[in-house]
């Protein structure tokens, strides 16, 4: 079984978000980049399937050279090889087109990624890739088991979950609790240095969206503290001041 895991390279969840160049560029100063947390779940499940089903795991990132430390981390966690498509991931259409192209070349049985990236939060890439490849897509997936050529999954819906079955190959957008995040060990880190990381040039894609500029939300006002012995006052404030009751 060949598994392709698509990872995004995103600011750590504790990052302070700021912009430069007249609000047209993300300010990377002091920002630590990580594998997208949802993609990290997908990777963790792929590594588990590698152990249980003897699969091979390829990680794929669409990004510029600065993403390579993030890709090496994925190799350290347990992927066998990596591909970087050398381009800035400008929008979901562009990224999906690059992934679909790599997927066509590699004929993977399973294409996993996070349900969404935590920078642009579109949550659209998995469905786009699947449609481009004419494959089924399932997202957000909370459980994934493979039995022969059949995948059994649990997909989260509002207020519950749905059990889904599909034959390989297909595309899944993953989320917890599909697997536990894996921390690379020393041996993993050492071996990641010599695992293959192939760099491909992007295919051309038409323009679907162009970023004009970024904005930050308005600053939050001061918190108003209410005495613990006076919850009636809180109720009054919620009704009369905040007008939410």
């Amino acid at each position, binding site marked *: 079984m060949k598994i392709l895991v698509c990872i995004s390279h995103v600011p750590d969840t504790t990052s302070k978000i700021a912009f430069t160049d007249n609000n047209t560029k993300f300010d990377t100063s002091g920002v630590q980049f990580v594998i997208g947390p949802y993609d990290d779940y997908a990777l963790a499940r792929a590594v588990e399937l590698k152990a249980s089903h003897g699969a091979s795991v390829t990680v794929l990132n669409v990004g510029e050279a600065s993403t390579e430390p993030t890709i090496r981390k994925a190799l350290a966690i347990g992927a066998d090889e990596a591909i970087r498509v050398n381009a800035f991931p400008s929008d979901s259409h562009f990224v999906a087109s690059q992934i679909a192209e790599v997927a066509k070349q590699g004929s993977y049985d399973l294409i996993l990624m996070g349900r969404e990236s*935590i920078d642009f939060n579109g949550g659209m890439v998995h469905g786009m890739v699947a449609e481009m490849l004419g494959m*089924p897509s399932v997202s957000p997936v909370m459980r994934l088991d493979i039995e022969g050529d059949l995948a059994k999954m649990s997909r989260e819906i*509002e207020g519950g979950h749905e*059990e889904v079955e599909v034959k390989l190959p297909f595309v899944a957008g993953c989320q917890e609790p599909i697997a536990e995040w894996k921390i690379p060990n020393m041996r993993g880190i050492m071996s990641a240095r010599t695992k293959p990381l192939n760099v491909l040039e992007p295919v051309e894609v038409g323009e679907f969206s162009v970023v004009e500029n970024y904005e930050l939300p308005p600053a939050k006002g001061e918190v108003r503290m209410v005495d613990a012995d006076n919850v009636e006052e809180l109720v009054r404030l919620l009704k009369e001041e905040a007008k939410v009751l």
Partner: protein
Amino acid sequence: MSVLVFIESSEGEIRKSSLEAVSYAAALDRGEVIALAIGEAEESALAKAGISGASRVLHAKDEQLKEDNIMAYASVVAEAMEKENAEILVLAKSSLGDAVASRVAIKSNAALASNVVELPDFSAGFKVKRGIYTGKAFVNVDLKAEKKILAIKKNAVPLKEDGAPCAVDAFASTVNEADFALKITGVEKAEGEILLPEAEIVVSGGRGMKGPENWHILEDLAKSLGAATGCSKPVSDMEWRPHHEHVGQTGIKVSPNLYIAVGISGAIQHLAGVNSSKCLVVINKDPEAPFFKAADYGIVGDAFEIVPKLTAAIKALNA
């Protein structure tokens, strides 16, 4: 030209977020607003899309569409866009909406913007504002393709309620057997509960609640407010609460009018899921809990004393 709105229902009624999407489509003022419902639903319930501005509802009710099959639904939506000559598809951001919209974008060669929070600016191009970095920022993007898909963030755009129920017409869609490669073998869903992502008020508990046996305190408060219940990640990790109640960066992102956080420290990853709430109330025994910095109202004290008192005060207000 027209604007198509894919609408979803829960417990027999169109979801509020879908009505927001219909309202948004009407406010676009880019032609007739046509709603599309797929699967089982009562006509009288679907007709209410008219109240939010739809001129008619298309209902695809083929037996095979009873379950929300992502692939089949995407085919129906793309077919309706084509038949109705729709320039724009609008839908509420949801578990199903995202999965369907992404496939339709490719089928219809449309530009897609997700998490849209405002009406577009048509003065030069088609510029939409959407939330990014999990509520920590926004981006203005210009959509370039002829067709556009806009997935609207919940509780971000005004709800129109002054229209009249409209006609509901059957939509005969082409059944594409290949779409049924995806098989839904079971559904488990809480009945009669307010859906967390749709709720106007959310009562949420963290590790400070000490254990699942104490959740009735929060459930009583939620009931008195007509609220949904949520929780922090450790709470769902420890299985005190089901996963679909987990709020935050890696869970559900909520944007209710009121979010009441009880015994939650306010880690940045939790805040990422609640930062678009209109009003945040924090109850925590630690005056230094980081959540207070993000809150509108706060009470320092023991949740086990404060929450029952709050429930009583709400009940007194409602009485």
